[in-house]
């Protein structure tokens, strides 16, 4: 499944380029502008640096949440039916598809990072941290893609799916630590953020790429792992529903 995605990307990368526009705008425009008014306490790191991991993750998550569209398309065509008739198990199919989306996410990240570098974002110059950050993005993306597959098994048309996709992604993004530290949020959002997988991913990647503060890393990893496992199971269980 991952190979399928790589081969697709080899033939057509247009989607990735266009999808990279949005995070680039955040980094190039939103970050510097908000940074100048210093309204948000980000400690001693510049605001653009602070939000770079956030928008990076936001863009990869976006990509994954809409991965379900591919599944909806495959449902309309006969591909899903055929896949479900192969000896491969549902779990293998769902996890494979989800991880394939992770591959897309990594390529997306590889487009955004150079732009951030040009904007003067200071990354921690440690290749091991970089690789680890991308592994985290890859794993977390799988979980988000599983959400998407789960959603696709309920929303069987593109239009409904688009609506639901938006409804999932925006709350995840705004009620996370992507754009501002959780500490400045109202209590209710703080509570929500504690259950928001996006926050853990952003925290881990921010620690690895920007701040170098890895104290929360084990918790973040545990949260991502739990999130992945739960979503993989849910998505696999409901996967059969999609073709009925």
């Amino acid at each position, binding site marked *: 499944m991952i190979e399928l995605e790589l081969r697709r990307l080899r033939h057509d990368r247009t989607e990735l380029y266009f999808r990279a526009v949005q995070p680039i705008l955040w980094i190039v425009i939103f970050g510097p502008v908000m940074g100048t008014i210093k309204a948000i306490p980000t400690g001693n790191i510049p605001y653009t640096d602070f939000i770079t991991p956030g928008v990076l993750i936001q863009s990869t998550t976006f990509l994954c949440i809409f991965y379900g569209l591919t599944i909806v398309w495959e449902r309309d065509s006969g591909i899903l*039916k055929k896949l479900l008739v192969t000896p491969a198990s549902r779990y293998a199919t769902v996890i494979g598809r989800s991880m394939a989306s992770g591959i897309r996410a990594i390529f997306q990240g590889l487009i955004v990072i150079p732009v951030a570098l040009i904007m003067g974002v200071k990354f921690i110059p440690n290749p091991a941290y970089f690789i680890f950050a991308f592994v985290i993005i890859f794993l977390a993306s799988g979980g988000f893609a599983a959400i998407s597959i789960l959603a696709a098994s309920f929303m069987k048309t593109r239009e409904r799916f688009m609506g639901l996709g938006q409804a999932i992604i925006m709350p995840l993004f705004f009620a996370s630590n992507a754009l501002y530290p959780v500490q400045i949020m109202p209590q209710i959002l703080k509570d929500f953020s504690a259950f928001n997988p996006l926050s853990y991913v952003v925290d881990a990647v921010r620690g690895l790429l920007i701040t170098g503060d890895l104290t929360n890393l084990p918790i973040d990893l545990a949260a991502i792992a739990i999130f992945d496992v739960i979503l993989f199971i849910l998505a696999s269980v409901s996967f059969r529903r999609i073709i009925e």
Partner: protein
Amino acid sequence: MEIAVDVKNLVKIYKPKTRALDGIDLSVESGIAFALLGPNGAGKTTLMRILTTQLRPTTGDAYVFGLNVNREGGKVRRLISYVPQEMSVWTDISGYENLLIYGKIFGIPSHERKQIIDDALANMGLSQVANSLVKTYSGGMVRRLEIACAILIKPKIMFLDEPTIGLDPSAKKIVWETLTSFKKEYGVTVFFNTHYMDEADLYSDRIAIIDRGKIVKLGSADELKRSLGGETISFSLAGNNINETTLRKIRTLTSVRDVIVSNTELNILSENAETTLLEAMEILRIEKIPLEKISIMKSTLDDVFLKYAGSRLETTGRMSEVTHTRDMIRRG
């Protein structure tokens, strides 16, 4: 003879109360080409989807090579391959890559994979375009690629849902020639749905006619046609001078069922028009009865179909076929 498909009193009800299958009983021997013929909405696809473990029946049992499709789905899926009605390949990668990915999903060992894929492509006449993107393929090529996918694992039974829908006659012919030779070579059972009479007539060993969720008739194409009451030989006589003796002689011929004369028309109903024709010609020659014209009317599968499934094919079949073909075109 091994039984490939065995279906017992199968019922499928879609909510709220569409009775898609209404008590199907069916038994298909292995190694044959079996056609499930019926108008759209008759339950063909539903039956096939139950047999391929995609849907669960509401009541009743279905077995593929003795394995219960409901309880032993995993084992069934190792024996079968399936080509759905809709397009089922990825269009944004090449034909070879499609087969490669399916090959991996099916778990074909890597050292055999390339050879098997190359063989499948060659069998389907796609070697030339193996590395082009599937979007650039014609409808017939896409279908052949799908069948190439289905033959990768040398299944014991292939399920094909409307395999030639939307294809032009030559593409149709190529698809069936390959399927037939594949069937001969590997003894694969081919189970297909269709609403094209000619296809069922030419390429199947046995036909089941399904209508409104029930099997209404089962047999080989010839048996079904004969069940309608045989074939008619029609002689136009040059005069009105046929006598009783001649008619009696013709009536005593082996396969003749009835002889009807009206003015200058002599109609012979026979179970085997070809042999009766020779014999009747001989009698008419001896009796010196001049003829103007001879024609043979055989019943076609259309007649069989009309008799057992009514005329619904004409009305509902065409429309949904048109929309379906359009869908295929729109998707590229």
